[in-house]
């Protein structure tokens, strides 16, 4: 089955062709929707089969964890050898599974949400293209194929954010997303060029196997520069400071698109790339440090902004930025599997939240402002229940999905071996504070929307009387996602079943891809007897596997950290209890302020007016960028147009035309209109030719 993994990409692409070319002929929304959903359903089926095939073969494959599928030779020029090839390994399988799964649910939801839209088949075309590009990105076995997907998702996000392009605002938001992403893409390109320069290849497996010896022979700044350039790309795609500004504006698209961008595709690409190229970040601890600090700052900054936003989708958007910050902290501290764990958990509950907000907006007839909602619980019970579950999950309440991943991130910060001793403590405090704010703002948006009194506009009441629950096409995906948000974390972190697999936890399953030590000690990992590996796996997520299998040095370093923190299970449980406590405080605090004592926030708004304005204005990043980048950029562009374009470029073109005109004027008298003159010219020409021949 592994060699047929390309089918996962091919099915959505087929959907693109059918809906994109014949969409106008189909006309039936039902058929368009079925084609779009079926394409994704089949893709998900391929993903599941691939996973099963791989999971039951793992560790029996003697050549290492990577399975490469070469589709066709692509670029073979000199020593640049690039194939259109896919890579199947635990990391790409995890990405493949949740991208296709969550996208499938979003597709089903879209059939309901977009039912009244004219661009129905166009919508499904873009949606399918988006997913297929994301799959190319996660399945690529070299940097260039990944870059194809990388650009592809950028293009599709542009198309989908500006889906309702007749409104200029939406079109501008699409352009903003595209342009900001282009800045990041520049970083990715430079990073790939440098990889090719030092490795002579952009093939991931080649890079993994040679990273240690190549970088030991190169200057210290080389892995740092590569890591930072790649991270610049990741900040663009994954909306990290300073390129986070496009994501909140991406709300201009239809809500299923927001869910797709925020949960399954696009923003996870940056985290995936850092996790995918983790051997490079392992070789450059400073780059990892930068990643962690930027992630931490972004998480904090976005959380403070989310505290005061009124638009339900804006709150969720900043919440995504904040959660992505968490993922980058995990990447930065070297816990790549935790980052991917949080990516998957976040996909479940954030998709559920976004689709829930879409359901609310649908039921409220395009109202997005939480100030004019309230008391929707009675009218939209399913949406309320699923939204509440996801809120608990993102806040990190035990045993919901978000608890496991977020708590693991906090724990990994605590045991981080940073270059600077103060870093883990500072980052941990900020991350914990962010967790508190996350619980608060998620509680706030949920209570303001579903609980309390009705605050609907009189206009709305007059027209529609009361909101309505959405249809089954929208509710069923919500319920499925909510179920995943409940059990997903526990199922992947400490599953109570084994299903005959040796690697039931996400950590041990992903270890070959994301544990840096397993690259260094790759051959050794295979010499470990199966019994011992199984034994290590039984010990579960803890560090048994690492100590038994790979990287004795690395394991020892971790071990010291545990000794420092005392018995690690007890400590970890204490940490977990603390983070749940923070989440509970946040949820209860917001409940008090927004349900029984609604309006209590008004006097705090007055007391903390500058801070409130700062948060409401989104830290004025847009204004800052407008002054510092957009205005000078426009001035430079204007100058270029005025002087370079008009004077030099146009000057060359017009000058050429002028010279030709002058020559024409000079030779004009020769064309007399008398045939005999022309005959004379012919004769003169013939005579000259003859004379030339004679003199030779």
């Amino acid at each position, binding site marked *: 089955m592994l060699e047929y993994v390309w089918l996962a990409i091919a099915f959505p692409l087929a959907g693109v062709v059918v809906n994109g070319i014949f969409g106008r002929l189909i006309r039936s929304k039902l058929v368009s929707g079925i084609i779009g959903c079926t394409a994704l359903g089949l893709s998900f089926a391929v993903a599941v089969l691939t996973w099963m095939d791989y999971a039951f073969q793992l560790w029996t494959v003697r050549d290492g964890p990577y399975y490469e599928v070469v589709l066709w030779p692509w670029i073979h020029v000199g020593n640049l050898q690039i194939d259109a090839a896919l890579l199947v390994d635990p990391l790409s399988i995890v990405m493949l599974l949740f991208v296709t799964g969550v996208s499938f649910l979003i597709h089903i939801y879209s059939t309901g949400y977009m039912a009244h839209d004219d661009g129905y088949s166009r919508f499904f075309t873009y949606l399918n293209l988006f997913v297929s590009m994301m799959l190319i990105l996660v399945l690529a076995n070299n940097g260039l194929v990944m870059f194809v997907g990388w650009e592809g998702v950028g293009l599709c996000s542009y198309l989908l954010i500006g889906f309702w392009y007749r409104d200029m605002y939406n079109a501008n938001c699409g352009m903003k997303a595209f342009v900001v992403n282009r800045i990041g893409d520049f970083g990715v390109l430079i990073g790939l060029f440098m990889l090719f320069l030092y490795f002579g290849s952009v093939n991931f497996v080649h890079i993994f196997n040679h990273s240690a010896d190549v970088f030991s022979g190169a200057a210290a700044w080389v892995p740092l520069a590569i890591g930072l350039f790649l991270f610049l790309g990741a900040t663009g795609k994954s909306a990290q400071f300073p390129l986070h500004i496009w994501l909140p504006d991406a709300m201009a698209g239809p809500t299923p698109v927001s869910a797709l961008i925020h949960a399954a595709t696009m923003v996870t690409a940056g985290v995936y790339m850092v996790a995918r190229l983790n051997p490079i970040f392992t070789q450059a601890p400073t780059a990892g440090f930068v990643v962690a600090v930027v992630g931490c700052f972004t998480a904090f900054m976005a959380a403070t902004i989310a505290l005061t936003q009124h638009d339900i989708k804006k709150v969720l958007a900043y919440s995504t930025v904040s959660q992505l910050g968490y993922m980058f902290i995990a990447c930065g501290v070297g816990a790549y599997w935790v980052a991917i764990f949080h990516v998957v958990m976040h996909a479940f509950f954030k998709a559920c939240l976004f689709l829930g907000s879409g359901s609310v907006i649908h039921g409220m007839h395009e109202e997005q402002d939480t100030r004019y909602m309230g008391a929707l619980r009675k009218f939209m019970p399913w949406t309320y229940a699923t939204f509440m579950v996801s809120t608990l999950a993102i806040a990190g309440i035990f045993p919901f999905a978000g608890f496991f991943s977020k708590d693991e991130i906090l724990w990994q910060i605590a045991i981080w071996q940073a270059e600077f001793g103060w870093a883990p403590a500072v980052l941990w405090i900020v991350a914990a504070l962010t967790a508190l704010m996350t619980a608060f703002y998620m509680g706030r948006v949920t209570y303001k929307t579903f609980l309390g009194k009705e605050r609907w506009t009189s206009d709305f009441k007059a027209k529609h009387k009361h909101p309505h629950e959405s249809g089954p096409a929208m509710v069923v995906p919500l319920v499925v996602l909510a179920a995943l948000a409940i059990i997903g974390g526990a199922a992947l972190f400490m599953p109570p079943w084994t299903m005959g697999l040796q690697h039931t936890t996400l950590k041990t399953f992903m270890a070959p891809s994301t544990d840096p030590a397993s690259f260094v000690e790759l051959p050794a990992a295979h010499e470990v007897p199966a019994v011992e590996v199984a034994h290590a796996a039984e010990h579960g997520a803890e560090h048994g596997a690492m100590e038994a299998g790979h990287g004795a040095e690395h394991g020892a370093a971790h071990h010291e950290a545990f000794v420092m923190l005392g018995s690690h299970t007890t400590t970890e449980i204490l940490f977990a209890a603390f983070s749940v406590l923070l989440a509970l405080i946040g949820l209860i605090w917001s409940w008090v302020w927004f349900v029984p004592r609604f309006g209590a926030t008004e006097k705090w708004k007055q007391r903390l007016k500058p801070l409130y304005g700062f948060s409401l204005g989104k830290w004025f990043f847009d204004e800052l960028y407008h002054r510092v980048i957009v205005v000078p950029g426009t001035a430079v562009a204007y100058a270029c147009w005025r002087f370079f374009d008009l004077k030099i470029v146009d000057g060359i073109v017009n000058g050429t035309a002028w010279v030709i005109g002058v020559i024409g004027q000079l*030779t004009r008298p020769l064309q*007399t209109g*008398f045939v005999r003159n022309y005959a004379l010219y012919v004769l003169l020409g013939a005579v000259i030719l003859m004379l030339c021949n004679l003199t030779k």
Partner: protein
Amino acid sequence: MSEMVSGSLVLSGVLFTIGVLGVMIRRHPVVIFMCIELMLNAANVALVAFNQQHYSNQWPALDGQVYAFMVIAIAAAEVAIGLAIIVALFKRREWIDVDEINLLRG
């Protein structure tokens, strides 16, 4: 060079010069046309003469003569088109002088 060949080449040269002068000097299109024919036939004479000069047992070919036939064929086609143009011109005007047909002057 045999007597006959040199004589033929002189004839060819004379005919060609007459043709060139005719084209340069005369104004009536039919006459100009005849002069062009004269030049073509001068060339034919030269072709045949040169073939005669080079003809031998080692090179028993008739390339010059064959080429002359080709020139004749092309001249026939040219006459067909040229006369058609001239007839068309006559239809539009009573009398034509090539110097009056100067719409394409610069």
